């Protein structure tokens, strides 16, 4: 599949103005960052209360990037998620932004999917879709794994560039800017590849009213384990959940008083003698 995509792309992009790029965007449906969490009655999961579920913030950069490439080169943007029926809300949101197609990978066997299972589900689905480029978010808020994009690329045998804040097309290659410790790195990767998107890459658009109306009519395909040729037994989580806790409350702190210069002196003394932090 992947090699076909590459051949197709190099033919298309080599000569013509009509280079088309089909982009697959991985989108995760997550509780928004305002969410306050509680431990659920089972002691294993979280009770997210009335959390508002949204497109993972980093995935918005991925959708936006896909749309910009499509506007420049033509082609289609397909959004895909592994999740329950409620995740269609995020797919609709991406369709409203302008994505063409959406796929929901949903099956009871996917319910406890960890990053490794999620990546295998996405890889099986990606093999059935035309894609010259796969975009993911840098990380999914909540799970905080920062894995799925990289796992997917490795599974598909294509290059992976993570934490990307800039992208330029050069022939059949991408020139990517990525954040590294203490600086930026420019990386060149040939298509097809997986890119994980970081804040700074673009400014995600808001869906227009027209987009929202159009999204309602777009069809969302639902694929189950059997459709993807996946064995549910093989998707068991790699680690077994044993306990869920909230962080212990921090002991009450000391608010210093007095003249500011004296407070600062006391602070430094406390940091040195009591907290042993300096």
């Amino acid at each position: 599949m992947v090699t076909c995509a590459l051949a197709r792309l190099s033919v298309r992009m080599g000569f013509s103005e009509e280079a088309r790029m089909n982009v697959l965007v991985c989108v995760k449906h997550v509780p928004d960052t305002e969410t306050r969490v509680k431990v659920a009655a089972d002691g294993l999961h979280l009770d997210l209360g009335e959390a508002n579920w949204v497109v993972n913030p980093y995935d918005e950069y991925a959708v936006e990037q896909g749309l910009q490439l499509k506007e420049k080169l033509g082609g289609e943007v397909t959004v895909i998620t592994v999740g329950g029926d409620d995740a269609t809300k995020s797919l609709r949101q991406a369709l409203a932004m302008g994505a063409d197609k959406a796929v929901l990978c949903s099956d009871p066997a996917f319910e406890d999917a960890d990053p490794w299972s999620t990546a295998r589900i996405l890889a099986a689905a990606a093999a059935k879709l035309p894609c010259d480029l796969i975009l993911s978010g840098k990380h999914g808020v909540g799970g905080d794994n920062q894995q799925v994009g990289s796992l997917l690329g490795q599974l598909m045998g294509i290059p992976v560039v993570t934490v990307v804040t800039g992208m330029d097309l050069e022939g059949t290659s991408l020139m990517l800017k990525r954040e590294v410790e203490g600086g930026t790195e420019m990386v060149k990767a040939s298509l097809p590849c997986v890119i994980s998107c970081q804040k700074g890459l673009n400014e995600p658009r808001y869906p227009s009213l027209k987009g929202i109306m159009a999204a309602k009519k777009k069809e969302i395909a639902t694929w189950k384990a059997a459709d993807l040729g996946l064995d549910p037994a093989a998707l068991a989580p790699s680690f077994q959940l044993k306990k869920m806790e909230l962080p212990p409350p921090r002991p009450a702190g000391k608010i210093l008083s007095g003249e500011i210069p004296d407070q600062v002196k006391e602070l430094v003394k406390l940091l040195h003698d009591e907290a042993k932090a300096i």
Partner: protein
Amino acid sequence: MNVLVFAEQRDGKLKKASLEAMSVGRDLADATGGSAAAVVLGQGVAGLAEALGKAGAEKVFVGDDALFAQYSNDAYGLAVGKAAQVFGAEALLFSATAMGKDLAPKVTARLGIGLLSDVTSIVTEGGILFRRPIYAGKAFATLAPQTGKPFGLTLRPNVFPVKDSPKAGEAVSLDHGVVPGDIKAVVEKIITAQGELLDVAEANVIVSGGRGMKGPENYKILEELAREMGGAVGASRAAVDAGWISHSHQVGQTGKVVSPGLYIACGISGAIQHLAGMSSSKVIVAINKDPEAPIFKVATYGIVGDLFEVVPLFTQAVKAMKTGA
């Protein structure tokens, strides 16, 4: 359990986080009756085996090759995978640094094993358990590896101590089999930020500034304090969004989640997304002119006052303590 630790070096120097990981690897091997080894990649890095031996490595697989002079997840992924196979690794440890987070999933996917990100504590008595923050630290999950199945972990920097546990640290040349054509994503250029201090993800002291900083020029006073303490400069999202400082400094749920020994919040109110990213710091100092600011709820020490008065005095006092002591 045979434990292999990926040891990260930069400019021929081992990262402190890698020694932390090595110490964890040693403990894990001892608790399960296995052996611990490290793998180090780069050019001219064979000398690093000694330090890794001191932190508990029996063996150090050394990939000393021009192909590894510049990090790439393709070349490093292949080589670490190879080392894992040669060693018969049952646990594979990385630091949750920028490189570790980029590399670990490449390796575990290659080996077909699971990976747990950002582990902050490990229990080895009565079965192995790993604890990790989720929702940027709003909750902690405890998980156990599946019996008999190899796995990978990334470890949060600054939370595990470096322990002296001298072992042979025997350097073994790694027959990595990597060829130039394996590198598919090629680094063409590195732009080092000017006068950049440490990265917040790795620093043990972070001096962070928020909207109260009023403008980009004022970050200088935070830099001075950070420099005095060997730390890094962090920021709230409000400051990043205002364009005062780059996003790589942002602390919080959509920035970096950090656990330094000391976190100093200057002109930061303490919104839930910011607290999520820093409230597991060992000691927190809040400097804010609003006594009602939520940041004081998590602070170990607080000063209610104008940061433009407090911070320079703070820097002076630290300097005085260092020279006076």
